[in-house]
């Protein structure tokens, strides 16, 4: 009995194996994609976001076209970076295509872990389908996501970018407009400058029992919501303000400007906003920012564009159709607006089983139909065609702003030491926000520590 059972199981297993190891490719299904690599199996590691989930759902279409099998594994930020670093540094070759946060570009490209993409684009020009057009990838995004020291190492996998989100319904309310104009002497409108952003934050911060747009508030309303925990979320939040004030981490010449007057001013400004943020913002990350906006208890935030889908999702948001999307404010009206890139990048490992097959997968992920489906299913695409698609623009209120922000966004440094710099900034921003140090002292301390980390590499040649 037992023997028969085992034999049956074995037979099924063997049959199963032989079925999957030689995929049948139908030339009619190719759509212009090469089937030369049929039978190759690719392992892809990507960040645990909607974009990756969508791609995993669509992957069978790629297999149908090319005969290449794809296994997509996902992991959250920190674990992904650790797995990838281990895999790359030990040359294990578990992953063929890895979506990395672009901050690690210098680390991985500088250590020669990932393939340069340009030769692969040229080599495989006749092997990709017609719905892939590399010129359609938004140039600034591609530059941030993949260019390191003059060479390109991948293609953008996720186009997260910051923007200002505000409660358009409140901003358009006649009573609120009148009250705001009476109090501040100018019309209520989406903030152009940081001073206006602060006025609006102050104006909308109200206790439970007060009136907001004609209704009595059952719980408190806050002018802003922001991330202030000792976490990268707080550093990225600060970099939005710093970009607006002309400060930041590194200037165009590669010199550190962490403790510059503009940087200090921007952190002081961020701290001053805390007064109008929900209590305990010093232990909040982007998750709480998104939740506060969705619950409708915050009037404004500088937040990530890839959360816009969550704002417009009726199953989890109380503010569907009420959020407006605009540029991140600036210091003085007329200054150039700057968002902050949060992009991720598909890179091809030097250990990939077949780098051309891996490239085909990346190209397919950025092809027009896949990019449009990513948009339709709530993700964030990386091509201009998807952001300008009339159907998507009509149904996604944040779409035009996402494109604008992508075009004016600044990049975080991407040098090999950035992880250490980020850690120091997270420490000092948090220290300043809880008042254990002044913004000036905190940023001076950060500058000193970072100078120690970088040593004689300053001024940075590539960043």
């Amino acid at each position, binding site marked *: 009995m037992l023997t028969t059972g085992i034999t049956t199981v074995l037979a099924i297993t063997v049959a199963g194996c032989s079925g999957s190891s030689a995929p049948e490719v139908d030339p009619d299904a190719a759509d212009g994609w090469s089937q030369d690599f049929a039978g190759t199996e690719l392992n892809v590691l990507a960040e645990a976001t909607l974009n990756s989930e969508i791609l995993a759902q669509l992957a069978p279409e790629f297999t149908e076209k090319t005969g290449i099998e794809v296994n997509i594994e996902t992991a959250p930020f*920190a674990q992904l970076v*650790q797995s990838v*670093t*281990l895999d*790359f*540094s030990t040359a294990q070759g578990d992953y063929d295509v890895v979506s990395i946060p672009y901050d*690690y570009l210098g*680390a*991985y490209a*500088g*250590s*020669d872990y990932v393939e340069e993409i340009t030769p692969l684009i040229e080599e495989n020009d006749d092997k990709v389908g017609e719905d892939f057009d590399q010129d359609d990838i938004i140039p600034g995004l591609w530059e941030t996501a993949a260019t390191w020291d003059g060479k390109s190492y991948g293609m953008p996998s996720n186009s997260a970018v910051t923007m200002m989100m505000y409660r358009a319904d409140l901003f358009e309310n006649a009573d609120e407009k009148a009250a705001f104009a009476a109090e501040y002497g100018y019309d209520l409108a989406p903030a152009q400058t940081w001073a206006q952003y602060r006025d609006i934050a102050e104006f909308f911060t109200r206790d439970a029992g007060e009136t907001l747009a004609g209704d009595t508030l059952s719980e408190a309303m806050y002018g802003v919501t922001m991330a202030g*925990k*000792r*976490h990268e979320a707080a550093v990225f939040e600060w970099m939005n303000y710093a970009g607006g004030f002309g400060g930041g981490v590194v200037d165009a010449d590669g010199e550190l400007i962490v403790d510059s007057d503009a940087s200090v001013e921007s952190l002081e400004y961020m701290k001053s906003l805390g007064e109008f943020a*929900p*209590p*305990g*913002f*010093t*232990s909040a990350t982007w998750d*709480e920012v998104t939740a506060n906006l969705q619950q409708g208890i915050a009037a404004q935030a500088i937040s990530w564009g890839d959360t816009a889908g969550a704002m417009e999702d009726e199953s989890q948001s109380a503010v569907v159709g009420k959020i407006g999307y605009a540029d991140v404010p600036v210091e003085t009206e007329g200054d150039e607006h700057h968002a902050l890139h949060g992009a991720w990048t598909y890179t091809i490992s030097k250990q990939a089983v077949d780098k051309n097959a891996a490239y085909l997968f990346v190209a397919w992920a950025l092809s027009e139909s896949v990019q449009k489906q990513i948009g339709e299913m709530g993700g964030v695409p990386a091509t201009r065609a998807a952001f300008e698609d009339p159907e998507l623009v009509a149904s996604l209120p944040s779409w035009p702003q996402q494109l604008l922000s992508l075009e004016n966004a600044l990049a975080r440094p991407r040098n*090999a*030491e950035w*992880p*250490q710099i*980020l*850690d120091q900034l*997270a*420490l*000092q921003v*948090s*220290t300043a*926000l*809880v008042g*254990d*140090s002044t913004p000036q002292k905190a940023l001076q301390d950060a500058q000193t*520590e970072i100078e120690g980390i970088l040593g004689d590499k300053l001024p940075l040649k590539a960043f």
Partner: protein
Amino acid sequence: MQAPSLVILALVLAFPLIYSVVLSFQSYSPVDAEADGRFIGFDNYIRMLGDEQFGRAVLVTIAYVVLAVGIETLLGTIVGVALSRLIRSRRIVTSALLLPMIATPLVVGLMFSFGLNPQFGYMTDFLRALGLVGEAGVLDSAGGAFAALVVMDVWEWTPFIALMVLAGLSAAPQAQIQAAELDGCNTFELYWHVMLPMIRPVLIVAVLFRATEAIRQFDQVYILTGGGPGSATTVNDIFQYRISFAAFDMSYGAALGVATFAVVATLSAILFRFLNRKGADA
């Protein structure tokens, strides 16, 4: 006969240790092509001595271990003595006391993280109602966040001390207790002068266990505060994790690990020696 097991032991214990020691004399980062594993002598150790942030992490760890284990020992002993006097409900109460200990540290961290959420947490509401915390909640200040970690550990591990005390009391020789009673000791004197000294070895083992566990506290801090605000709750393990796996400075991380190992091993040796002497006395 023992050779195969010794070989395995050597492989799993000695190899990583030797590897860490070697690494601690190198400059190595998997994400920095310039930190390619070349030997740099004692540079990592010298850096450690001048590293203020490491110094602060050590102080935070010492304060954390002393406070958390101290409070647990005190409370645990009181609870253990109270338990020993229960007759009918002892078994139920003992089982209930096991509950916090069974929860994995990660889950405990998440429970407190929800409870202490400044906006929706039920613990925050409760503390606010008592007037103990302000609008911004517990985790907004250095002192509050640190206290939360200590309370979390005390909540989870006081039962452990209590159970050890209970076990010690149950095994205490009855003849001396009866003799003391005949000599006219009152209940307090009986515990203070007779029974607690008897269970001292058990208590020291319990404290030793707890202290070595608390020194490597990581999960709960990682979940609840991430080491913040500022560096208020950056205990040694969080600091080393950041160095090795967030900043990927593997060789400096190895040096920190080796130093921590040396300190903990020394502490354990001292405690074991102390324990042996006391054990012989008792």
